[in-house]
């Protein structure tokens, strides 16, 4: 019988929630990497037992972990075995060094700091890991300060794709409240050369040649909190998603506004419609219905909790504009948690499952596309990310 594995990254470790296809009873394993922030975990679409995890700490920096058995055991790629005397380890899985070479990189570039001055790029952590759709050893990493890295040897070694950071608009990128982070990576299933990424607060970008050259795709976005609301660069994009069957149709949750593009990001239009607030972080698409979209509206500025203390997922079955609240099983009073940008996922079972985690440590699941919800766990550390794996 098929099943589901939900990968949960929290502020104090990783948890793996497993269930059969009914998704009513769950096994919980963890905490893995106890005490560390797990910004993101994601499994390889080509090999579900291959899972990558970003383990970070303000004290000890970045660590990359890999599992080859579905999360039962983990190791640091390249660093798991002692080198022979006089030899260096085979790989340095946590080495993310910007490409500053004159030949391939962009030496001495800077980005904008909070106060408008220019600031050098400083690696802080990996926000998002996106495994290749076809090769378990190839993974893209979105990092803070924003840049895109790639490994092709199972995370033993990472190299920057410097064309993004150096394509020309970098000096206008500025950190959002969470830092200057590259948090979204979308690989096109129909075009191996096409990748979408998003950065807070710079905007969305697209490559059509596998990451060598990039263009901003922010036309149509309007952000009243920047000096030029329709500027090419500077928008605080919170998350972007797509349905695999229509990789040119994108849905975006921006700092404010839910947006849609039908032409691979070349032009966006707003689809916030009747949402109680168009601020939020997560956005996702139903596994089998490309026009069914989910968001969790959040009150802002600064409050960052659900309006009226009611935790509601909103679903649109029309690709935006017309939204319905989904509340059955979710707290409808005195709820003041947040749902962060990478903390919603869907499974691919016949009745699509939806999952999201909160800063209060709950992970909610719906086995019927959002009609009914139940908490899988109540009391984890604050949830940073949620991914769902559909198992054969």
């Amino acid at each position, binding site marked *: 019988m098929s099943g589901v594995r939900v990968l949960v990254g929290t502020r104090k470790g990783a948890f793996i929630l497993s269930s059969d296809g009914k998704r009513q009873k769950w096994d919980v394993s963890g905490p893995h990497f106890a005490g560390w922030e797990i910004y993101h975990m994601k499994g390889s679409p080509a090999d579900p037992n291959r899972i990558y995890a970003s383990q970070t700490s303000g004290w*000890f920096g970045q660590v990359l972990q890999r599992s080859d058995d579905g999360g039962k055991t983990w190791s640091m790629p390249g660093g798991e075995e002692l080198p022979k005397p006089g030899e260096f380890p085979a790989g*340095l899985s946590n080495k993310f060094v*910007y490409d500053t070479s004159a030949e391939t990189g962009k030496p001495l570039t800077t980005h904008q700091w909070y106060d408008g001055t220019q600031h050098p790029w400083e690696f802080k952590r990996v926000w998002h890991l996106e495994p290749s759709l076809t090769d378990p050893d190839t993974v893209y990493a979105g990092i803070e300060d924003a840049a895109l890295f790639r490994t092709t040897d199972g995370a033993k070694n990472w190299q920057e794709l410097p064309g993004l950071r150096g394509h020309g608009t970098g000096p206008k990128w500025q950190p959002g409240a969470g830092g200057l982070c590259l948090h979204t990576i979308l690989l096109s299933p129909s075009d191996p050369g096409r990748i979408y990424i998003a950065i807070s607060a710079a905007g969305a970008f697209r490559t059509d040649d596998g990451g060598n050259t990039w263009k901003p795709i922010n036309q149509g976005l309007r952000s009243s909190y920047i000096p030029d609301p329709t500027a090419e660069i500077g928008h605080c994009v919170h998350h972007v998603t797509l349905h695999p069957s229509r990789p040119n149709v994108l849905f975006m949750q921006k700092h404010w506004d839910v947006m849609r593009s039908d032409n691979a990001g070349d032009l966006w239009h707003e689809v916030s419609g009747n949402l109680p607030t168009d601020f939020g972080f997560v956005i996702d698409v139903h596994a089998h219905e490309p026009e069914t979209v989910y968001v969790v509206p959040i009150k802002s500025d600064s409050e960052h909790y659900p309006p009226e203390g009611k935790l509601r997922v909103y679903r649109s079955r029309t690709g935006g504009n017309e939204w319905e609240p989904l509340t059955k099983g979710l707290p409808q009073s005195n709820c003041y948690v947040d749902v962060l940008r990478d903390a919603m996922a869907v499974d691919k079972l016949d009745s699509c499952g939806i999952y999201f985690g909160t800063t209060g440590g709950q992970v909610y699941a719906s086995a019927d596309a959002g009609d009914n919800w139940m908490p899988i766990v109540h009391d984890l550390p604050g949830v940073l990310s949620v991914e769902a794996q559909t198992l054969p």
Partner: protein
Amino acid sequence: MIRVVLPHHLRTLAKVTGDVQLEIEGEVTQRSVLDALEARYPMLMGTIRDHATGQRRPFLRFFACEQDWSHESPDAPLPESVASGKEPLFIIGAIAGG
């Protein structure tokens, strides 16, 4: 034999308990100790010294013989009692939240 006391999370990463003991050839300095530590436990590379700059990570401190060595030159000799293994070199995380 040099003794190094790691903070809890780095002991977990390195899969060790208690002190780490290292053989150092030549002068015993912060750099030579950390080089030997990372060669013996490569999973610690980047967790104590930044990969790009080689500098001590800002929330870590080095103590020996009740003295703070964090701001000394990485090539300054450590005390004889550390070099002889009588006293350990402590790598300590800053107390800055939970």
